[in-house]
């Protein structure tokens, strides 16, 4: 299967080398903020923006950064990007910013970002690095959303509650009550629920991959070898 460079980047980011499912990076925010869909979406988009910006900058200056000092340089670029995004969120999504709290500045420590800077952006041209940041970010956001939806439904019996924090007052009523009169299931909201949920999602991905592999087996695989993050 030949996807071309951009198709391959999209496939790796969204599925084959998904930062949350396969690389298991950025676990701390992944587990901490996925108690509702809206929180998950907020952090996912912030992380995606950071990834795109840091990938583009790292890729643009990759000719001039000496390998001995590349890690401090990456860290400073990422920190600058995260600070800018944090201030932007504080300005435009203040309530969401309050809920996500420490996890916005902590995006700086999300290993996905420095991993992509080191493994991809510092070796590829700007366009491909931008695509990699976008799709890695979307892959991460997708997992956050899935986990957030699972935990919100099990834990509170709702979906998209507090959507107005992100999309303005017009969407305050978008919240769905999936299970009426639900008493709540605290474990799903607490950290163990996040671990168990993520474990089940990864198991599901492995099952799907195994099925796809079995279906593909008769045809020998000729596509490019998966580019691993490390």
């Amino acid at each position, binding site marked *: 299967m030949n996807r071309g460079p951009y198709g391959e980047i999209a496939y790796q980011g969204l599925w084959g080398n998904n930062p949350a499912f396969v690389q298991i990076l950025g676990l701390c925010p992944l587990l901490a903020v996925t108690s509702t869909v809206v929180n998950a979406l907020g952090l996912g988009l912030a992380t995606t923006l950071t990834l795109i910006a840091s990938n583009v900058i790292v890729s643009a200056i990759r000719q001039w950064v000496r390998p001995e000092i590349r890690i401090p340089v990456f860290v400073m670029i990422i920190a600058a990007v995260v600070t800018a995004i944090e201030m932007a969120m504080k300005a435009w999504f203040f309530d969401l910013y309050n809920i996500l709290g420490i996890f916005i500045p902590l995006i700086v420590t999300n290993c996905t970002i420095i991993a992509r800077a080191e493994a991809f952006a510092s070796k590829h041209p700007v366009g491909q690095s931008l695509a990699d940041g976008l799709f890695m970010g979307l892959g991460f956001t997708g997992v956050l959303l899935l986990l957030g939806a699972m935990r919100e439904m099990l834990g509170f019996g709702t979906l998209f509650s507090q959507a107005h924090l992100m999309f303005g007052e017009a969407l305050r009523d978008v919240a769905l009550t999936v299970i009426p009169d639900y*008493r709540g*299931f*605290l*474990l799903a909201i*607490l950290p*163990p629920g996040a671990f*168990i949920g993520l*474990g089940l999602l990864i198991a599901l991905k492995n099952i799907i991959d195994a099925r796809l592999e079995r279906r593909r087996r008769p045809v020998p695989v000729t596509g490019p070898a998966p580019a691993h993050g490390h």
Partner: protein
Amino acid sequence: MRFEPRHSSPHLAPVGNVGRLMFAVVAALVPGTAAAAWFFGPGVLVNMAWCAATALAAEAAVLRLRQRPVRPALADGSALVTALLLGLALPPLAPWWLPVIGAAFAIVVAKHLYGGLGYNPFNPAMAGYALLLVSFPREMVAWLPPGDGGLDLSAVLHYSLAGTLPPGATLDALTQATPLDTLRTQIGLGRPVAEAMASRPDLFARVGGVGWVWINGLFLLGGLWLLWRRIAAWQIPAAMLGALGLLALVFWLLDPARHAPPLFHLFSGATMLGAFFIATDPVTASTTPRGRLVYGAGIGVLIYVIRTWGGYPDGVAFAVLLMNMAVPTIDHYTRPRVFGEEKGR
């Protein structure tokens, strides 16, 4: 040379099979269970039935999914024992989904996701109990007063299935805190232990809670029978009860107004059930003789700590789970010396 039959792997002599072991455990549970049903009404048995049905169904379903033989695994009774222990730990008036969720979690997540019987690091019954206690704190403290539960089987079944109580009865009026919980609250309010216990003769007997003394005493009896039959290792209950009693004794002697007497700790809550039936689970407990002493003592200490300074009414479940986590380390450092091996090498 005589082989000690209860050592770890290379020296393990065949002592019956898992099935015979598990059914001896069930038999030993009978007297204590009867006492619990006598004091807290038929709800105890209803919970155990829900747990047993769910656990067996979950066990069969998971075994089928894992493409393992279903019948022998069901017949060995390990799922049944897990279910009965969980059922005994639940409050006697519970909606049906409480035991069902707990038992399903115990079997599917705590047992089979870790590899099934023999591979699970955590005691499945206690994992199920901890899940329920963390997730549904309100339902998990709905204990009935001892003596006369006041509800017959049909009333309990009605509550379990539909959540309705007989006319005139409310959940808040029917239920009350356990002796352990009450004493903790009273100590927190600054009342001396002796005065707090004397002011509630309906709840406190001379050494422990009304009813709880009998329940714990009969579990002790069943447990001693298990020790006599050499089914459970004596080190675990001895070390656990010893550590709990000793710690309680020290603090009680230091300040009897703020600490419950040692006998109260030994004969309240799930102490005896935990010591003989839960902590001794052969899969999740330590396997070396010295390790069992450490493991049991650790549980005893943790129970006292959680009961006295923790936030939960009883500490057996969390104490057992925490020590389960320590078992690999304990086993590593207490490995018996191989014959001929020199010390310090």
